[in-house]
């Protein structure tokens, strides 16, 4: 039915990218000063914000765990996020599944055992959606957790990949996602291990490996981009806190923000 051509004759994708080129990535930390940590992440037109509260006293004591912190995820998709206006209800299965995946991804990475009986609440807002919901949600959550100063074993960076005939491509848009077999992975870059793999489209076993491994490589590259943002922010904070000593540079840094 679709006349959409994922790759043109010049080996370029519909938005002009080369197959392994990522969309423009940008991130900002402490977007919500009232949260303990927050971050906003954009992959092209997809924009997701995450706010972290905690570790803090659990609201629902029956749910607490005696040996570690409870991680709660709430996801909200803005009605205007997708192409068609849609108001999602609380019980929406897709949203619930998304929240469950993010939760299971971060539970083993956050050092929850340092905070018994506490809870860490993570609120994810999807402000705009053009493919890569899971990857943007995971990346925003990673950055928000770093921003909140919650100890983690590593970054978690996530990326999607697809396959058109034999060409693998990274960081899919909505159009590509709906047309190509695709996989989303989340990696722990230091160990190179994969914590999340999600594929929902039919693909022969033999063609899976290349796409899967490329997505993992891409995820590691993305970690570098995320770390840049974190370091920039940490540098600014550190200078400001030092006070008088580095005043001049300090001002330059704040101007950059």
């Amino acid at each position, binding site marked *: 039915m679709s006349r959409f051509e994922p790759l043109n004759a010049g080996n370029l994708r519909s938005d002009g990218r080369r197959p392994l080129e990522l969309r423009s990535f940008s991130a900002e930390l402490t977007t919500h000063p009232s949260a303990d940590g927050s971050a906003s992440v954009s992959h092209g037109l997809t924009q997701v914000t995450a706010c972290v509260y905690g570790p803090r006293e659990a609201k629902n004591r029956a*749910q607490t765990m005696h040996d570690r912190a409870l991680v709660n995820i709430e996801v909200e998709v803005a009605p205007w996020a997708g192409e068609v206006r849609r108001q999602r209800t609380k019980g929406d299965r897709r949203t619930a599944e998304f929240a469950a995946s993010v939760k*299971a991804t*971060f539970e083993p990475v956050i050092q929850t055992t340092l905070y018994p009986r506490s809870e860490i609440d993570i609120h994810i807002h999807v402000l705009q959606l053009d493919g890569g919901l899971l990857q943007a949600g995971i990346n925003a959550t990673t950055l928000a957790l770093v921003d909140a100063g919650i100890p983690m074993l590593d970054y978690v960076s996530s990326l999607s990949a697809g396959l058109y005939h034999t060409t693998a491509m990274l960081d899919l848009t909505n159009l590509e996602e709906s047309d190509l077999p695709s996989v989303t992975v989340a990696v722990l870059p230091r160990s190179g*291990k*994969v914590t999340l793999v999600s594929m929902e489209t*039919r693909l022969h076993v033999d063609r899976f490996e290349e796409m*899967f491994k490329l997505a993992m490589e891409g995820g590691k590259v993305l970690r570098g981009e995320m770390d840049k943002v974190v370091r920039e922010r940490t540098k600014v904070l550190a200078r400001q806190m030092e006070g008088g000593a580095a005043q001049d540079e300090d001002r330059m840094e704040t101007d950059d923000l």
Partner: protein
Amino acid sequence: MPRDVEPSINQRDFIFSAIQQGLRVDGRSPLQARKTTIRFGNSLGWVECSIGETRVVAQISATVTRPYFDRPFEGIIVIHTEFSPMASSAYETGRPSEEEITMARILEKTIRRSEALDREALCILAGQKVSVPHRETNTKIVRGQQVWTLRLTIQFLADEGNLLDCACMAAMAALRHFRKPEVEVVGDEATMFSPEERAPVPLALHHQPLCVSFVSLGPRNTPVMDPSRLEEQLAHGKMTISLNAQKEICVLQKAGGVALPADEVLHAVNVAVSRVRDMSDLLNRSLEEDSRTRVIEVR
């Protein structure tokens, strides 16, 4: 929500140290599945599947309805999963837990999203005009835009681990076992025949995806196939792969949990390929045996 009581330290330590030696408490090796059996009921499309002590019943019914507005040429399949406290005291009626939602979603992706069923073949009449269907003795005549709506109900009877694989097997078996009444279309009029008049026809399936689940267990995160309930509770991570006999992955879901090296994921995929081959063989064999015992009257 009552949380399941977590397994005791003794059970955890024992299972972890056993898996280090390649042992499981039910005597299996890590990549060995429990005995799988399929039992067909009297009515077509009623299947009970069990893996070890885990038991699931899948049931199919078909009705004629109007299609969805945006998909006028396709039939409808509704998948309904029923978790009840009967399967395990951890389940409660009412708001489904995360685990239940994840399971229902994987079933949905495996059966519906992977296009296991030819939905266009469920279309009876794609015409535009609508008139009231009228009845004769046994033969029903339908007019207008009409499609089959299949309702797949999955009931969980006992949860001793790995409900998902069992449910998927039951569902696919039910889809293959089911027969829908034959329909003859002349012009823009369709005639539906009762089973007495003409033998009902099987559903058109594109392929037959089945789920294989693994958990990571113990200090070295040993991959374990077909986990028991206790193993599931103690697992550091879970991964489910849906495949068909043509070696096509339909769903691969590892939603978080402990991180694994890429090669371990790929290895699991390969293990799943052979497990699915065995399960498909079993399913085909069971269906054949059943059809031999069934006398379908054809006039």
